[in-house]
């Protein structure tokens, strides 16, 4: 584990990762456990949903509004808002502290007195974050795959995998932004604050923009659109949307490395 910067970062997060994985599995289990009772009272629930203002509905549900079908339920209960928010909390916390946290704890001087370049440290920190996010996404997928049939939420492993892949790449974008801002500023609070702000804007944009045909195109400016816009739970992985998210990630990483490489470390 302690053979590389990447390994050490995972080692440092080992307990947190375990906690997140267990927590997410528990949350998934709990969510699925409610499905049978919702299914029984399908008409009442759907009536409530249909009465909601369109804006609110799109915030919480996205485009799939039949919440009592297995796909609609999983989408509304987990993937439209809760899972992306959980993933954001996870990656923004990890990303913003990866470099900036070491700087604030004064261990960055020690690390960079080793024969490693700043670029290497930065990219290995990102690799660790990606691996950590992978573990959390895998826990999500696995707990869904285990508990879906017992609770009658069978949407197929492929559909679950597709939405999890979208979730993973969506998480990478904001992990990379948090990491880059932390590496550029050396301040964890600044990085976490700005990244959270960007994420909040993304949510607002993708829920408000579709309400009017004139502003609809604006939703394509939000990373959230490339996570959920193609409804991967129904239609599988959208390579184009994944590509856009990957491109955003690479852009954030490129900017972060450059800034990190060209500044003074804080004492």
């Amino acid at each position, binding site marked *: 584990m*302690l*053979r*590389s*910067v990447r390994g*050490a970062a995972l080692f*440092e997060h080992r307990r947190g990762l375990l906690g997140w994985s267990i927590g997410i599995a528990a949350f998934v289990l709990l969510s699925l456990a409610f499905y049978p009772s919702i299914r029984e009272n399908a008409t009442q629930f759907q009536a409530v949903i249909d009465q909601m203002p369109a804006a609110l509905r799109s915030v919480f549900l996205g485009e799939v509004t039949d919440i009592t079908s297995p796909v609609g339920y999983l989408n509304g209960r987990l993937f439209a808002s809760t899972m992306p928010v959980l993933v954001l909390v996870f990656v923004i916390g990890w990303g913003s502290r990866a470099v900036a946290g070491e700087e604030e*704890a*004064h*261990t960055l*001087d*020690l*690390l*960079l*007195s*080793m*024969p*490693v*370049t700043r670029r*290497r440290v930065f990219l290995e920190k990102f690799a660790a974050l990606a691996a950590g996010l992978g573990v959390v996404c895998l826990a999500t997928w696995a707990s869904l795959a285990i508990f879906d049939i017992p609770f009658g939420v069978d949407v197929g492993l492929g559909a679950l995998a597709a939405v999890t892949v979208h979730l993973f790449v969506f998480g990478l974008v904001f992990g990379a932004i948090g990491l880059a801002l932390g590496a550029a500023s050396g301040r964890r609070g600044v990085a976490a604050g700005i990244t959270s702000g960007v994420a909040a804007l993304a949510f607002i944009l993708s829920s408000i923009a579709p309400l009017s045909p004139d502003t609809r195109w604006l939703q394509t400016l939000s990373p959230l659109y490339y996570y959920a816009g193609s409804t991967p739970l129904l239609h599988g992985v959208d390579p184009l949307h994944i590509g856009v998210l990957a491109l955003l990630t690479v852009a954030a990483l490129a900017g972060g490395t450059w800034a990190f490489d*060209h*500044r*003074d*470390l804080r*004492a």
Partner: protein
Amino acid sequence: MVSPAIATEHLTKRYGGVRGIEDVTFEVGTGQVVGFLGPNGAGKTTTIRTLMGFLRPTSGVARLFGVDVAAGGAALRRRTGFLAGDVSLYPRFTGEELFTYLGSLRGGVDVAFRDALVERLQVDPSRRIEDLSHGNQQKIGLVQAFMHRPELVILDEPTQGLDPLVQQTFHELVDETRGDGRTVLISSHVLSEVERLCDEVGIIRDGRIVVVEGIEDLRARAFRRVHVRFAAEVPAEALRAIEGVGDLVVDGTDARCTMVGPIDPLVKLLAAHHVLDLVTERPSLEEAFLTYYGSPDAA
């Protein structure tokens, strides 16, 4: 020609208009142990962090082994060992975990040699670093700085918090490093330590290097304080006429002055008088230090 282990040319670092160091030029030859003296805030740490590549110089060049630090980066740090001023190690790691991690990043660390260091410095590598006292953390910091037998060791205030026994071991370690023909730069504000360890000393003041010279040369230029009690009237004029005598204060039959350079002329003069008491202090580096810090024009 072998490049000096450290060389800076007109190295300047300003922080948003505020000066950190200004026009610092000095060299540390291979195999030398050099002390880097100055009060806190004079620019020692800024200079060292620029040498390590943590700070980008505003102007001027810092070279290690003849290679510009800005270009040589990781390859230079492979040949260098470093201990920061306020030592900050990964608090959640044990000493053993830290050595494994840093050893992996460095590659090729002789584990037997490292374990011998751990033994000599009496480090307990099985405990978590955050549970160790400051002095014990400092020892772990020293182990990692020396464990790969680097050609150059840069230490920022290395003996803070070390108990005297460990300081002794540290001194031996520095002597052995010099014995191998390797180079050490030690920043310190503890003069006696620099006096004990170093061949040469650089003094930095207000961001500028004031002087780099041998300890003995520095001491020769240092002033000593002299206090003479005469039985009769003080021969003030004759005293003043002696080269090197300054700040003469006559109080009844007591004379106090400072003295730079050879003391012999003073002794010869005193021999012609009835002297009740004579006190002179050996010039310490501290006095030399004050010579430079005492008056702004000393350089």
